[in-house]
């Protein structure tokens, strides 16, 4: 038996020859130089889509939810699909900023700001759907525990009310987390920007931050507590979203696998969306040295893992449907794969189960163009997953006499397309006005930041990592 030992050094988190000053310049100059033309074009297109969204919402309120394809028996359609899809996308941001922080994964610093911004805008898009689908949006405040003229309270035993609390708490905590991370970086821009107006605005939001280590001490504690709070929160939100389905008795929904399966799917689609956006942004803004190929590879591994978990959940659903012996359960799963919605089911399987498996190959994990393609495929697949769950179960419930075929209308489609306008309008504003990489955090992960990497004269002198000769034992020779 022979063994060879080798030290494998971790690749540097920031490529190129960066120091504190060049990192500040690289990231915050994007916010301070004149707006590029391409930004205006993208912003214009997003604004048109945003207008489409506002128009379709306006018409919905005017006319009622009858303009959508909802009908008996499928009383839930694109609105809930889009809601779950957007909330799921949001989850990657919190996962990167909270769970990876607790696991001391320093590579998160390159992408966490960016992903958190994505979370906030995705949750905004998600929040629209449950709000507008109520039909009478002017009494939407009934979902909150506010005194009203009927002296009634919301029903706290209802999963739909749990959703209200889960999503609004999630949005608020994500926003606070994001803002806390932003404060030191806003101070950086405040100290560098020349214009008086810019100084006032950034200065206001920086709250007078001055890098005091007495402040950093509380700040780091606060950040860690927030990460500790956000971790169970992010898991609970999609669990509660899955309760909307799982707590009912409809065949195909009434399963205990839903919470973990939904959370895995959320992380899966969220990471795909972060990759889609990141691959474009790093190219346009020249951030390849911060958002490196190693980052893309690590995220692809997470996509592969969560994709496999989702695939396992699909298998397990089938197994349990058979093992439970409940005829309705068995029937719905066979119908999903062979019935009228088989096309959607097989799109879902192809995109979610088969496509991420290509990332077992290191070469493909590190291929940017290919990753971009797969990230979009995954997001399409995850939309179809929610479509399959929501629509197939509702349209083929217990009684064959009440079965029907659900199809969306024009208004379903443009409301969904319009949410991209909302998302990208905010996202482009974020790219333009806020540092898209956490400047203070990325400085802390380069070797210059560690006091141990200086010699006694105060000169920068990082310890050389020694890679010893492989130890070969005698068995190998013989």
């Amino acid at each position, binding site marked *: 038996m022979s063994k060879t030992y080798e030290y494998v050094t971790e690749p540097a988190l920031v490529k190129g020859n960066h120091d*504190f000053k060049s990192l500040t310049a690289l990231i915050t100059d994007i916010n301070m130089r004149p707006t590029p033309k391409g930004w205006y074009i993208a912003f214009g297109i997003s604004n048109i889509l945003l207008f489409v969204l506002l128009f379709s919402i306006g018409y919905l309120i005017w006319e009622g939810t009858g303009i959508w394809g909802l009908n008996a028996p499928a009383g839930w359609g694109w609105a809930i699909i889009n809601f779950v899809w957007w909330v799921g996308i949001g989850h990657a941001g919190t996962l990167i900023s909270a769970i990876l922080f607790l696991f001391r994964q320093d590579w998160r610093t390159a992408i966490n700001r960016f992903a958190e911004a994505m979370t906030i805008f995705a949750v905004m898009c998600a929040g629209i759907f449950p709000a507008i689908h109520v039909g009478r949006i002017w009494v939407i405040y009934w979902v909150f525990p506010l005194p009203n003229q009927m002296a009634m309270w919301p*029903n*706290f035993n209802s999963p739909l009310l749990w959703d209200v*609390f889960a999503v609004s708490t999630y949005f608020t905590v994500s926003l606070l987390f994001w803002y806390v991370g932003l404060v030191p970086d806003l*101070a950086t821009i405040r100290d560098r920007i020349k214009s008086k107006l810019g100084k006032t605005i950034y200065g206001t939001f920086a709250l007078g931050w001055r890098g005091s280590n007495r402040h950093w001490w509380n700040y780091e504690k606060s950040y860690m507590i927030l990460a500790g709070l956000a971790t*169970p929160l992010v898991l609970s939100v999609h669990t509660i979203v899955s309760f909307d389905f799982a707590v009912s008795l409809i065949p195909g929904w009434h399963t205990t696998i839903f919470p973990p399966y939904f959370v895995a799917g959320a992380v899966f689609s969220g990471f795909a969306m972060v990759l889609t956006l990141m691959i474009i942004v790093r190219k346009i803004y020249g951030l390849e040295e911060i958002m490196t190929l190693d980052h893309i590879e690590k995220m692809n591994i997470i996509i592969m893992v969560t994709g496999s978990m989702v695939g396992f959940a699909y298998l397990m659903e089938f197994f349990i449907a058979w093992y439970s012996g409940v005829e309705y359960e068995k029937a719905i799963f066979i119908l999903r794969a062979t019935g009228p919605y088989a096309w959607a089911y097989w799109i879902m399987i192809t995109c979610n189960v088969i496509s991420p498996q290509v990332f077992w190959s290191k070469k493909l994990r590190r291929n940017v163009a290919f990753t971009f393609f797969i990230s979009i495929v995954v997001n399409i697949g995850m939309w179809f997953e929610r479509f399959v769950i929501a629509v197939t179960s509702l349209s083929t419930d217990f009684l064959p006499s009440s079965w029907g075929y659900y199809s969306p209308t024009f208004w379903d489609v443009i409301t969904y397309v319009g949410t991209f306008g909302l998302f990208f309008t905010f996202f482009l504003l974020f790219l333009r006005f806020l540092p898209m990489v956490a400047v203070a955090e990325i400085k802390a992960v380069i070797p210059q930041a560690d006091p141990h990497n200086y010699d006694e004269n105060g000169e920068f002198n990082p310890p050389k990592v020694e890679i010893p000769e492989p130890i070969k034992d005698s068995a190998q020779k013989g």
Partner: protein
Amino acid sequence: MSKSTVENNMYGVLAEFRNPKELVDAAKMINQNGYKKFDTFSPFPIHGIDKAMNLPKSKLGWIVISHGLIGLIGSFAMIYFMMVADYPLNISGKTLLNIPAWIPVIFELTVLLSAFGAVFGMFFLNGLPKFNHPLFNSDNFAKVTDDGFFVCIEAADPQFDADKVQSMLKDAGGTNIEEIYDN
């Protein structure tokens, strides 16, 4: 505190250091010399500087847990009041005191209140927002959010003596030493 510093409104003496290690060493030295009212400034939190400065444990944990308990007890009390006391509704014969079904909302509100405690408690402990500070009068200090490492010994410290402090910071390797005035 010498009389002259009170008269001319001195806030403290600011010195710049080259890198995180020199800042940690300076903080250790200042602390060993018995100064209490001083602070170090850096563009990012430096590993181990809390020990060098001898900072007390952050009180934030207490703020967060008390907020969390308010969220926990408050949300339970709210739901109990609404579902059992004020407007009991018989929904298919289910029990009114339906605690398992309340857990999601109680959990969310506990997290929400704790997060408020963590964020606003941190700003409260740090005395932020504070838009005007004597240190902002120093032009050199703008580097602190970029690549500057600073030490400031405040005039309010009982052993403060401007000349002594300046020579001490100089010996420790500080550059760009300047007096900061409070106006």
